[in-house]
């Protein structure tokens, strides 16, 4: 049997589509990345947590990272949504996504443990603590996952990220994107404080994302004239 046929029997390696995915994402979302009091680091294990309003969110954040950082970063996605069809699983594979369970969590199928394991293997994660996409740019309450993950991997840096306009480019419930310009703002890493309560920590995390709104490009800040 010819060699090329046997190669087809193996599952397709979706990683070869990654450069294309990055280019395509940048083209559609016109995203530019701003780093505020934070530098891209490939040698740190981080959790990038952001507001969530669009299917383009994880792809845009991931594509906004420099190549060496991106190679070590995995977006976390809901298995009940992204694991449904072959196409959606393939899409998540292209972006190196990590599928976790949102419901029916057991000790064996524990999303926090899966995420912690990926981080112990040296990966950074992209997480949307609201758990689902919100509408019209409202940032919903953060779910406890970020808190539990931070308690489990205390040395990881938690980097707040604000995603602007993606909810307008491809809102929830729509299929086709419109060509507006989006931006990705990375903020200063935060750590959980000793003995910090869950509620306080989650409120602080949400506030740190909201604080980045003032740093989106074009916003007039006092120091620029």
């Amino acid at each position, binding site marked *: 049997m010819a060699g090329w046929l046997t190669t087809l029997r193996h599952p397709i390696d979706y990683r070869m589509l990654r450069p294309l995915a990055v280019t395509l994402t940048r083209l559609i979302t016109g995203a530019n990345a701003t780093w505020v009091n934070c530098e891209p680091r490939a040698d740190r294990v981080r959790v990038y947590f952001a507001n969530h309003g669009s299917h383009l969110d994880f792809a845009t954040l991931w594509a906004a990272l420099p190549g060496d950082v991106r190679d070590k970063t995995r977006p976390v996605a809901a298995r009940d949504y992204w694991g449904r069809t072959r196409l959606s699983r393939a899409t998540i594979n292209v972006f190196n996504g990590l599928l976790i369970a949102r419901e029916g969590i057991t000790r064996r199928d524990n999303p926090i443990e899966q995420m912690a394991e990926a981080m112990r293997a040296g990966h950074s994660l992209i997480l949307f603590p609201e758990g689902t996409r919100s509408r*019209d740019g409202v940032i919903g309450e953060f779910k406890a996952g970020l808190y539990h993950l931070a308690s489990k991997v205390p040395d990881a840096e938690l980097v707040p990220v604000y995603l602007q306009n993606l909810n*307008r480019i491809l809102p*929830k*419930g*729509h299929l086709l994107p*419109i*060509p507006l310009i989006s931006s990705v703002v990375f903020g200063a890493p935060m750590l959980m404080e000793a003995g910090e309560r869950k509620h306080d920590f989650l409120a602080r995390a949400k506030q740190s994302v909201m604080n980045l709104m003032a740093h989106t*490009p*074009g916003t007039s800040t006092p120091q620029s004239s």
Partner: protein
Amino acid sequence: MNWSSPVTHHVLLVVFGVLGISSLIGLILSKRATTDAGRATVANLNARTNSWWVMVLVIFSALALGSIGTTIIFALVSFLALREFLTVTPTRSADHAALFVSFFMVLPYQFWLVHTQWYGMFVIMIPVYAFVLIPMLATLGGDVTDFLERSARTQWGLMVCVYFISHIPMLMSLKVEPLRMGPAGPVLFLIAVTQGSDVFQYVWGKLCGKRPIVPKLSPKKTVEGFVGGVLTASVVGACMFRLTPFNPWQAGLVALLLCITGFFGGLVMSAIKRARGIKDWGTLIEGHGGMMDRIDSLCFSAPVYFHVLRYFFAKD
């Protein structure tokens, strides 16, 4: 563009001569600058000159390609401008269909109409049909929050960035005579006078600007800059009469009209920006902000210029 005309040769000589001299001056200044502030100013000046090189080359290659090239280039300009305009003005997810139609149907169709030169449809498609269609689609989104504002933003985006800009390539369809340089002449006149007015106002403002006109909208625009800039650009316009069907006096008066409409176009766009708390529309052109920052004065002067030419000078 009529390449054999001496007018064309003079235009090319002057434009590229001025750019060449500006680049040379920039080079000399960058070697001479000693303080940090001085270096920053020179760097900004050079960034602006380089952007002008790109813009001039784009405009001249478009004009050299004739009506089709000009239409395509301004369709792209229009697309980038609409993108910036709608990015800055907030809409909601209920507007998605209306925005999609604006970008991918209304805009291409308007420039298709420029290409086919169907004047009747060209003048009413956006003010009538798109105006009606946009709120219709928005109602289907079923969201009443800021309904009038949201519809108006999309309608304004289409009017300013698509309808008004589409008048620039449509100039080439006007049957006006004599045109020594060919149909590119009136387009070049419009762009040179409107952009020249901006530059001269900036220069006069730097030289002797004291009293701001509307400080809340645009702190850098001064009475001295306005008067000096508008008069200089009008005189330059009068000197460029050979690009157009005008005599020198007519060219000067039309240039004055372009300067005034252009000035207020810039002021209106500035007011929209400031209401949103932003300084630039985008980051497309180094030293100049976005596409909208560059064409804001053309938005208002282009349609007025088109109709002056059509009403007083065109043959049919």
